């Protein structure tokens, strides 16, 4: 499920939902619905629109809408600016909806960051960062 290359890495998560693409599209593009499953936001389904995703941990992701193909494809940047350059994250999240017999297959691909920015992944979920840093030490000791 995970793809790795020298320059960029991407994360792919796919799941089939027992609902039509139109309904999933609403959940992906209406701000009050996005907030319920992802984060607080000021999203608008307009290419070029800049918006923020605000996590419960206080972090803010800078986003810009890249692609809007209703009921089919949604893509936006998922950037995390940090004073520490190694924590900067520049990535693109692409959602692809494909109708199936049972409903819709939803595919999420997040890509575009370099291996030397791996730490920045905590930026998307910074509450975990310290926790994982500590655990990496623990695991390194037990290996």
């Amino acid at each position, binding site marked *: 499920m995970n793809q790795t290359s020298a320059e960029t*890495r991407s994360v792919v998560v796919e799941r089939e939902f027992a609902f039509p693409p139109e309904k999933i599209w609403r959940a992906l593009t209406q701000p009050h619905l996005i907030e319920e499953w992802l984060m607080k936001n000021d999203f608008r389904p307009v290419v070029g629109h800049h918006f923020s995703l605000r996590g419960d941990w206080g972090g803010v992701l800078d986003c810009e809408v890249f692609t809007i193909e209703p009921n089919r494809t949604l893509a936006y940047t998922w950037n995390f600016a940090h004073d520490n350059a190694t924590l900067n994250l520049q990535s693109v999240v692409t959602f692809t909806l494909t109708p199936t017999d049972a409903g819709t297959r939803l595919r999420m691909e997040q890509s575009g960051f370099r291996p030397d920015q791996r730490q920045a992944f905590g930026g998307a979920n910074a509450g975990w960062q310290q926790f994982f840093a500590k655990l990496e030490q623990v695991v390194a000791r037990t290996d």
Partner: protein
Amino acid sequence: MRNAHAVVFKTLADPTRRAIFERLCRDGEQTVGALTARAKISQPAVSKHLGVLKHAGLVRDRHEGRQTHYSAQVGALAPLIDWTGRMTGFWESRFDDLEDLLKRMDQ
């Protein structure tokens, strides 16, 4: 794989549970009593959290006389240590919430 990721993430999303797990990682095997003495919650509450951690494969219990000793199973974290696994877990758990939302939505 997605379930394993999501379960571990959900289990550790609770700060109290995470604190208990961190203590076991840091200080090694402990009894419920020893963990309770340091926690700000009751022994039944600590036991309940340990049950959830055990279900997720994050701790193991060992019975000795009347005491139960718990230890951290850091191997259960291996898929999450790498960032790709970490983000996969993040999105899997977001998809869980999306699924819940879709069930509640009209139409």
